[in-house]
């Protein structure tokens, strides 16, 4: 099976070879329990007397709630109780909203209050002795609705005559604003041609983690504290949403995670469900357990942002140099802005994509519709923007007769320009896009492209090659939220680690993160082992997150491509502090000159010039913990239990100019895709595919490559199969894995991978976050299809989702797709 993955050798730009465990693909510490079915996922946790929760959900996309009657359900033997919106409205405050007016007038509660705004919205909850009984009893809850006209399109939602979802806001607009960087008018004046594109559309889908959302929630009446055994992937901010809503301090919410079955951003906005569970646990005075059904995850959990780009304009010089762009973007937030409107600014981390575009004018509007709320989904908001930049490149290339490879290289930011400041003040740290592209093209045999086209033609197929050039911006500056709403008091970022040397010499690491497959136990152990002179087997990394032990910070969690920077910098900081304390202790005990004369190796603190004088870590741990009489006062602060909070070096962005550095690192992913399209049916197959990654210094290459594979699979699924379409009544058409087809083993093409390493100058380990990818597969498939179909009247690909029937439509009526694109002379 070696042909499945081909990895190019010879990394570029590597610093001196690393010594130690960092850089090696050591066995994963997580695997032993997971391959034996001994992981602990939230649904594995049980408590005596716990009740199972089933949510009663709206069958309407938009309706008034006339009445709810739970009496028949409550009368069933084995039913413990219920919860409805009226109780929620009385006992909680609406969740904190981040937008400016009118968006911040929206009142979002744990259950629908007075009105439902999407099909699948929870209206009531029933708790019973078994899951089956809870489900049956939920059928007995009588809800009378008064249907209203659904609003299903973000562009139409802001028209004056559109029905309004949130009466209190008086408008469907969540947020709107303009961004104007460089001098767009001057760019128009300098351009030789202007390419205009009426409409581009990025579709709605979700990464659909295999483990659904859920929690077991216990309420302790004596301390008034809730404990949530759950799979929330951003507990720090989760508590910020939940505690004020529940009218308690943050210490009253203990969030515990262990193994999480995939997240991809879809487990960030679980707070409405979790608040309902907290209320039920308190009301019924018993533990309550809720596991989301697959259908509910599709219909009512988070979807990725759906974005429409209108009136695109691209000023271009005669030699193919593009000067920037102008666009009106509409983002569909679904029924409630639960993480939004952050998507209205997150895209700006990659404003020019990989390109040297200096003049940008964007009019951005986000609106509510009667669909499931959107929230972060692998590649959150940047993927949409990067798809836009890649479509711009290929559409302009097509209309001006430019070569897609040459035009990319002409417009790519060059490696000698790094660090590169974008028109809006973001700083791309390092990278070599042209080199990555060359590797990707080599891997798919670009030099034989024309020969392969002819071969495909002889078999009745059309062959096309497409490129997806993307960035994975990681380590957010949360100050970007102030570009949406200057009143918000969020900025910077942080993550925490604690490293302790315990009584028998055990090295114990606690992380603030909530990994969902990203191998934090392994990678943290590599970093600790190298700094303390031990092996990863000697390092015990606690699995999961527990806010009870003060091991977390406000932004703790696992999201937004940042562990390799925030998590590892925290681990490194704590470990260096511990190493310093061990040296100081050993110097005193061994009578050495000072801490600098002590080195740590093989589990000992040794005097550098005297191999006989060595103190085992076990002795260090024992002395401080249980045998500390007579230690001198200069060791009073030595605890061998060191906590470190990493804070990236960010400034608050300039809210007037909407200008500043929004993320710390930028990993590169450049993909090349070769498709063969059947001329008769539009069915296509990916016959060659290469993904080239540059995430700076790789601590564990195998894990990095695994993330590349996974991100590619998500993108290819979204390109061809995965979509969340709604019918005219606002019913989701793909509410389970029958209708929502995700890639299976036979769907995945052979993947070739390559890499270079351009260490980040902004992280001390040279690392960059890279788990999300930039949706490169979607962009590459779109480009490859457009290239393949060229002989059939040159249809243009203007939508991100291209199932076989869409390709067939493009072949049948190429002019329809071309109607919205024109090339004009400059002003």
């Amino acid at each position, binding site marked *: 099976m070696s042909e499945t*993955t081909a990895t190019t050798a010879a990394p570029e730009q590597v610093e001196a070879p690393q010594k130690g465990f960092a850089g090696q693909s050591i066995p994963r510490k997580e695997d032993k329990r997971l391959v034996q079915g001994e992981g602990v996922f939230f649904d*594995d946790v049980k408590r005596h007397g716990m009740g199972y929760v089933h949510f009663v959900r709206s069958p309407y996309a938009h309706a008034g709630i006339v009445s709810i009657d739970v009496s028949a359900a409550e009368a069933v033997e084995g039913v413990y109780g219920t919860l409805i919106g009226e109780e929620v409205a009385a006992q909680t405050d609406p969740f904190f909203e981040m937008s400016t007016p009118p968006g911040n007038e929206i009142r979002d509660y744990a259950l629908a209050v007075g009105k439902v705004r999407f099909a699948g919205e929870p209206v009531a909850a029933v708790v019973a002795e078994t899951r089956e009984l809870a489900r049956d009893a939920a059928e007995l809850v009588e809800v009378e609705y008064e249907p209203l006209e659904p609003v299903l399109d973000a562009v139409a939602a802001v028209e004056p005559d559109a029905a309004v979802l949130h009466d209190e806001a008086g408008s469907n607009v969540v947020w709107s604003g303009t961004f104007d960087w460089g001098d767009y008018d001057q760019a128009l004046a300098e351009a030789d041609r202007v390419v205009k594109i009426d409409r581009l559309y990025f579709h709605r889908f979700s990464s659909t983690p*295999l*483990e659904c959302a859920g929690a077991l929630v216990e309420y302790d009446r004596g301390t008034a504290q809730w404990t949530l055994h759950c799979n929330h992937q951003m507990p720090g901010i989760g508590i910020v949403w939940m505690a004020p809503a529940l009218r308690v301090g943050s210490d009253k919410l203990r969030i515990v995670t262990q193994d999480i079955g995939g997240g991809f951003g879809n487990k960030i906005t679980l707070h409405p469900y979790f608040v309902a569970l907290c209320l039920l646990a308190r009301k019924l005075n018993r533990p309550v357990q809720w596991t989301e059904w*697959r259908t509910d995850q599709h219909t009512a959990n988070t979807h990725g942002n759906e974005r429409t780009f209108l009136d695109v304009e691209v000023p271009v010089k005669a030699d193919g140099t593009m000067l920037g762009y102008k666009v009106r973007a509409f983002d569909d937030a679904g029924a409630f802005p639960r993480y939004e409107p952050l998507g209205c600014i997150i895209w700006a981390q990659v404003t020019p994509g990989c390109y040297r575009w200096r003049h940008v004018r964007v009019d951005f509007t986000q609106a509510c519709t009667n669909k499931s709320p959107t929230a972060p989904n692998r590649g959150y908001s940047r993927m949409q923007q990067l798809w836009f930049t890649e479509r711009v490149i290929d559409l302009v290339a097509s209309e001006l007769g430019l070569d897609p490879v040459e035009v990319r290289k002409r417009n790519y930011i060059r490696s000698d320009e790094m660090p590169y400041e974008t028109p809006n003040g973001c700083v791309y740290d390092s990278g070599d896009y042209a080199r990555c592209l060359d590797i990707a093209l080599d891997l798919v045999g670009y030099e034989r492209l024309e020969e392969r086209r002819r071969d495909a033609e002889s078999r009745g197929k059309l062959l096309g090659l497409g490129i997806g050039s993307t960035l994975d911006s990681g380590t957010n500056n949360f100050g970007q939220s102030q570009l949406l709403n200057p009143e918000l008091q969020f900025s910077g970022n942080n993550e925490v680690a604690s490293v302790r040397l315990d009584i028998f010499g055990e090295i114990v690491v606690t992380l603030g993160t909530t990994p969902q497959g990203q191998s934090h136990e392994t990678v943290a152990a590599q970093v600790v082992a190298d700094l303390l002179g031990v092996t990863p087997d000697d390092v015990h990394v606690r699995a999961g997150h527990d806010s009870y032990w003060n091991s977390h910070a406000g932004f703790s969690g696992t999201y937004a491509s940042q562990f390799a920077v925030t998590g590892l910098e925290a681990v490194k900081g704590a470990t260096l502090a511990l190493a310093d304390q061990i040296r100081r202790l050993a110097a005193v005990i061994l009578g050495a000159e000072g801490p600098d004369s002590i080195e740590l190796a093989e589990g000992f603190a040794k005097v550098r010039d005297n191999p006989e004088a060595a103190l085992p870590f076990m002795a260090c741990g024992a002395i401080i913990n249980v045998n500390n009489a007579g230690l001198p006062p200069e060791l009073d602060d030595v605890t061998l239990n060191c906590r470190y909070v990493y804070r990236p070096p960010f400034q608050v962005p300039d809210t007037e100019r909407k200008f500043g550095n929004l993320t710390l690192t930028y990993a590169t992913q450049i993909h090349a895709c070769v498709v063969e399209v059947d001329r008769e049916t539009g069915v296509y197959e990916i016959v060659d595919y290469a993904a080239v990654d540059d995430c700076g210094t790789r601590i564990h290459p195998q894990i990095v490559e*695994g993330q590349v594979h996974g991100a590619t699979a998500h993108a290819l699924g979204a390109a061809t199969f995965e979509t969340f379409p709604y019918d005219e009544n606002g019913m989701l058409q793909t509410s389970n894995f029958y209708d929502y087809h995700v890639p299976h083993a036979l769907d995945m093409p052979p993947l070739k991978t390559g890499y270079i390493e351009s260490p980040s100058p902004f992280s001390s380990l040279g690392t960059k976050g890279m788990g999300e990818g930039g949706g490169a597969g979607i962009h590459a498939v779109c480009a490859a299809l457009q290239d393949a179909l060229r002989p059939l009247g040159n249809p243009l690909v203007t939508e991100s989702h291209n199932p076989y029937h869409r390709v067939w439509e493009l072949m049948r009526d190429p002019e329809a797709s071309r109607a919205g694109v024109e090339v004009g002379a400059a002003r």
Partner: protein
Amino acid sequence: MEPVTSKRVAVTVNGALHERDVEARRLLVHFLRDELDLTGTHVGCDTGNCGACTVIVDAKAVKSCMLLAVQVDGATIETIESLASDGGLHPLQQAFSDHHALQCGYCTPGMLMSAKHLLDHNAEPTENEIRRAIQGNICRCTGYVNIVEAIAAAAKGEVSA
């Protein structure tokens, strides 16, 4: 006459005989997870698509969310918990770790049981046969690349000690 709502079931799971009264509507996967505490078998969908609940019943790989517990009366079942023996991992388990064939680990138990069923019946599978054997198992993390490599390596006995 009142309808029968439960039934006595005798089933051998991982070599141990269990006799229980089970609710007639109870799914096998919930019987395994909730009554026998074998939580290694997971639930990922409601529709039999994802395969996270795959176990081996009477030498056939089945999705345990698609069977009622009362249907396995008299059957012999193997779950993920039976795969390792004498403190050592099964070659498939070791190969999955060697090849980084798991990330979050949620699909892994079902994937491993499908793979075991394949190798029990086909000692030298081709890549296509491997993909076919696991096509009823969804993995959202790996893109299957390393899973296919791991199963091939286990079939060849190429696993680390």
